[in-house]
């Protein structure tokens, strides 16, 4: 086993890495390839299987296969089209999909506008197979999103992964070291995409997830001390539940998160002498042990 690994490293070492990395992706396939995490599967099989079922693995079609970016792809003026739509799919640019900030951050940094055109055409053709290639992969999380102190620490380096601990010789062909990230076990890491409130930096403001805002202002403010990872990634679990495509599991998780307490009273109310009104009173109390609002969005 060890010998085979060393050989693999030698084979790939001669391939110039910079060629692929230096220029931006022109097609969906090129972008998918740049952040492809299928090589991680052979060694991290369990984590890979968890991730594959997660919402992060299907960020453009999260709930039951719905192609939720379609309204943006519609022609401007058409019923259901949006402020981000254009009158011709060929005019679509990366900037027409502000959703990429969180749903596909690698498109903002590593894709040409031609990827936006191809995506628009795929959405209009309901080509789910093509849209499914665009994922928040291992590399997006363990490289792209791993550093937020870029002035102090520099940006994410090529060929380096970041995690909660250092691995000086990581036996992957492309990513030969794992450095320690300052934030990967911190809630702010997830907060990069899980939303504070309105996204005001765009020329057309809009709001999607704002759960991180609720975490800061309703959970931390009330004395909560756990991180997103402590509640959602126990033992390194990369399913990061809930998975809304698994109805049974989602119901069970919600049942353990939310308690429902019911009390009842039946009596006859006396409005005035001899005027009894039979009444039923039901009181309900719901409490949550989550670290933020439920539901969000």
């Amino acid at each position, binding site marked *: 086993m060890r010998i085979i690994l060393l050989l693999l490293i030698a084979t790939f070492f001669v391939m110039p890495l910079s060629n692929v990395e230096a220029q931006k992706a022109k097609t969906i396939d090129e972008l998918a390839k740049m952040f492809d995490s299928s090589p991680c599967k052979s060694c991290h099989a369990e984590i890979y299987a968890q991730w594959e079922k997660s919402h992060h693995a299907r960020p453009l079609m999260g*709930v*039951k296969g*719905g192609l*939720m970016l379609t*309204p*943006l792809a519609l022609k401007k003026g058409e019923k259901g089209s*949006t*402020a*981000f739509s254009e009158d011709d799919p060929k005019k679509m640019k990366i900037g027409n999909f502000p*959703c990429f900030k969180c749903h596909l951050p690698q498109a903002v940094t590593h894709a040409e506008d031609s990827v936006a055109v191809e995506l628009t055409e795929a959405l209009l053709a309901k080509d789910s197979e093509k849209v499914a290639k665009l994922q928040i992969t291992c590399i997006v999380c363990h490289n792209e999103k791993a550093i937020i102190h870029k002035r102090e620490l520099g940006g994410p380096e090529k060929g380096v992964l970041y995690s909660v601990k250092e691995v000086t010789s990581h036996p992957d062909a492309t990513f030969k070291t794992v450095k320690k990230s300052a934030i990967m076990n911190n809630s702010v890491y997830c907060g990069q995409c899980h939303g504070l*409130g*309105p996204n005001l930096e765009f020329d057309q*403001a*809009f*709001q*999607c997830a*704002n759960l991180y805002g*609720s975490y800061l202002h*309703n*959970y931390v403010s*009330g*004395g*909560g001390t756990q991180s997103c990872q402590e509640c959602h990634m126990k033992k390194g679990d990369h399913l990061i539940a809930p998975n*809304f495509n698994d*109805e049974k599991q*989602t*119901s069970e998780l*919600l*049942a353990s998160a*939310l308690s*429902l307490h*019911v009390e*009842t*009273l*039946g*009596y*006859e109310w006396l409005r005035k002498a001899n005027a009894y*009104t*039979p*009444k*039923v*009173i*039901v*009181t*309900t*109390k*719901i*409490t*949550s*042990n*989550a*670290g*933020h*609002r*439920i*539901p*969000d*969005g």
Partner: protein
Amino acid sequence: MTAKTAEGKEIGKEERHYHPQATNCRDTKEKYGAQWKVANIRDTSIQPHQAKKETFEFDLPEGVRTADITVNLFYEAVNPDNKYPIHTITREVSLDKE
């Protein structure tokens, strides 16, 4: 929450909705979908450290002395037909003391 007579006739039904509600800040209509929403104007979602308490009160029709109460809590994602059941609690309420 629904209340029924022993014969199954519905005598009360009320709903409470818990969720953040956003408009586009240009009109007063609630919007659905990130491409339309700009900011929350009301937030009835279930927050940590804050219990949601409700009181439902209704009158029993003439001659009815017992009611079957069903409290259902469920989650809806994307559209109201996509439901995830959470809890169902039933109670029989009687005006007669044994």
